């Protein structure tokens, strides 16, 4: 199929609309037995017209079309320990450390050291477990927020909220990030593992060794605002960051760095279906 040479130039030039030739239809054009009518056509999803393209898509997903590059070696570094206070894990691969950090130190309550998978759940926990104002308000109005993002329902008690999670959102009855607050022990601050179980069912904690220092002295009930909790948390992050700076890495979101994954095709590649994945950028964090 030969295209006119000027076509590429037309594509490269600016946008434009062709001045249409005058339209002049003769009624005999559509007269029987002729039946042509110019019309745009639409195809619904299951139409057989899409068969070939759908099969191509399927093969792509099943990785039959694209061959896979050698798995990039996990970059190994000299073994180093997590710098977060009280954490004793050692790593020799940055991927592992990143996952560990995000999982166990990423959203940690600095009162009771419980770790949560998201900021959303951490916020809810702090409010409900460590904020006296919340306790007072909850006696008068519905304060227990549904844990599902996007659901704005609030409830009088955590029990009601759990019922809602189970009935409406089909959450498991023993959802691990919705532990009801146990009896408050006035003599001590919250300690990890106070629900008494020692199983994988625990809300996540940072380390199996007990944490020595607690920000609240025993017996004192503080009303830390969320903001001061965030500052403590930030301090952890900065500590880690400075360690990582020494290692010459950045952690977390480094927007200037492009990730791309390497996939080799049966033929040589040009257009960016060839991508190479770097899981880390080795620039120091400024």
């Amino acid at each position: 199929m030969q295209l006119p040479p000027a076509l590429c130039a037309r594509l490269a030039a600016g946008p434009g609309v062709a001045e249409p030739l005058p339209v002049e239809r003769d009624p005999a054009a559509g007269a029987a037995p002729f039946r042509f009518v110019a019309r745009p056509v639409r195809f619904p999803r299951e139409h057989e017209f899409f068969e070939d393209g759908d099969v191509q898509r399927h093969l792509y997903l099943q990785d039959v079309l694209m061959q896979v590059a050698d798995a990039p070696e996990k970059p190994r570094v000299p073994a180093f320990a997590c710098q977060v206070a009280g954490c004793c894990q050692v790593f020799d691969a940055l991927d592992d450390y990143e996952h560990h950090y995000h999982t166990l130190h990423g959203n940690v309550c600095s009162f009771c050291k419980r770790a949560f998978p998201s900021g959303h759940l951490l916020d809810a926990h702090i409010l409900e477990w460590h904020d006296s104002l919340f306790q007072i308000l909850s006696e008068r109005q519905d304060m227990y927020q549904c844990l599902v993002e996007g659901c704005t329902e609030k409830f009088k008690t955590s029990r009601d909220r759990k019922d809602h999670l189970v009935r409406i959102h089909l959450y498991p009855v023993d959802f691990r990030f919705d532990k009801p607050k146990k009896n408050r022990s006035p003599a001590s601050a919250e300690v990890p593992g106070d629900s008494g179980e020692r199983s994988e069912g625990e809300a996540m904690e940072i380390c199996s060794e007990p944490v020595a220092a607690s920000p609240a002295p025993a017996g004192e009930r503080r009303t830390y605002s969320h903001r001061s909790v965030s500052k403590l948390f930030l301090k952890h992050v900065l500590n880690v960051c400075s360690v990582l700076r020494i290692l010459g890495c950045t952690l977390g979101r480094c927007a200037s760095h492009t990730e791309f994954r390497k996939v080799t095709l049966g033929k040589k590649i040009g257009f960016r279906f060839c991508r190479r994945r770097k899981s880390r950028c080795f620039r120091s964090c400024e």
Partner: protein
Amino acid sequence: MWSRRRGHLRPTVCGVETSGLEPRDLGSALRKARREQQLVSKRLLREDAPEEAGEGCVAAILGEAEVQQFLRQAQRGTEEKEREGALVSLRRGLQHPETQQTFIQLEGSMRTLVGLLTSNQALLQLEAARCLHELSHSEQSTIAEACLPATSYLLTYLSGHSSDFIELCLYTLGNLIVESEAVRRQLLPQGIVPALAACIQSPHVAVLEALGYALSQLLQAKEAPEKIIPSILASTLPQHMLQMLQPGPKLNPGVAVEFAWCLHYIICSQVSNPLLIGHGALSTLGLLLLDLAGAVQRTEDAGLELLACPVLRCLSNLLTEAAVETVGGQMQLRDERVVAALFILLQFFFQKQPSLLPEGLWLLNNLTANSPSFCTSLLSLDLIEPLLQLLPVSNVVSVMVLTVLCNVAEKGPAYCQRLWPGPLLPTLLHTLAFSDTEVVGQSLELLHLLFLYQPEAVQVFLQQSGLQALERHQEEAQLQDRVYALRQTALQG
């Protein structure tokens, strides 16, 4: 961390027996599967680390006792490495459908796995997630349903920060979604749509690609038009999807492919396409088409059709919406470069992927049907002859080429004059010799328009044995009325 599974034909590709099949027969088998709505596509991430390969051979099928032992070790082992190793062994065994069955039949196994998934040991958590991912790849919906207790956690982890882990969760969810309606029925109330809407703001390309995959699986569900697409359209997902498709330095092809397919599934379900048009879908996709044509020109390589196909489909279907017309009755998509780009893509398909020619021609039909401007572009950019060169490809392509030519010719004498003289009449005499009724029928329609608006063509037609070409079809039921009418016109002219 992850590499895709090495490319080779698996013994079965989602229920379709493929071992020993030639590529062409594989295509037929898959097309048949699609017709029967059995085409289930899944993604499998599997780490083929050197040390695993070094230990040699394929992973063995695990019996019940072994599965139990590994689970116990993972749950209660004292050394973290030992616990992790137990899960790695379990994961390897779960590559086998037999082990998967054994696993789900073992009481408490999923509960233990979910416990490990939510444990305080990050690497155990990761291995547990990988085990779940292997299970998600099963072709048995019972196995997918056995994973139901894990879904709330998979969704919860989407708001975390560990990008590799999120990627894994997304692919696992995508696989589970496509396998079982029960899983979808649970995921929707569990808040998958808001979770995806939050996750799509991730800056990590791998996460976005995985998200696009999971979303595309959700959108393909048979209940999607009623139960899923409305809430997707009500969220911020469409705007983000369109952002991922904007051409420019930030465009990532792998990500764009996934979201282009997502858009296609939404658009062809026809739930609320005017909303998408309102978000600028037509202009974004039009610009992307230009970008694709540019990419085709710069390189010889395959892979572009994976993105071109859904983009063509989206544009074609959107053009059928009434909302395309603005107050002045002009189409929103008017840039002539779209036609140039489309022909560059048609040439690319002609050389590399002829099966996609109909899809490209479909867009050309929808562009030209109601647009004098685009019909004029076809003429002024000298694209009629290239179009005619596509006729020999197949009957389907021939019919579509002739339809586009009819779109041009029916606009009147000013257009037919530009089709004459030229290769059009000899081509029609040639297509009249085809045996396919639809091709011949469309040729007759075009001939009728040509005779009407360009009467000089009649004489030349007669001189070139046109009548004999017509008479060949005078017994054909679907054609005879038109053959007769044309014969009369020719003889009277």
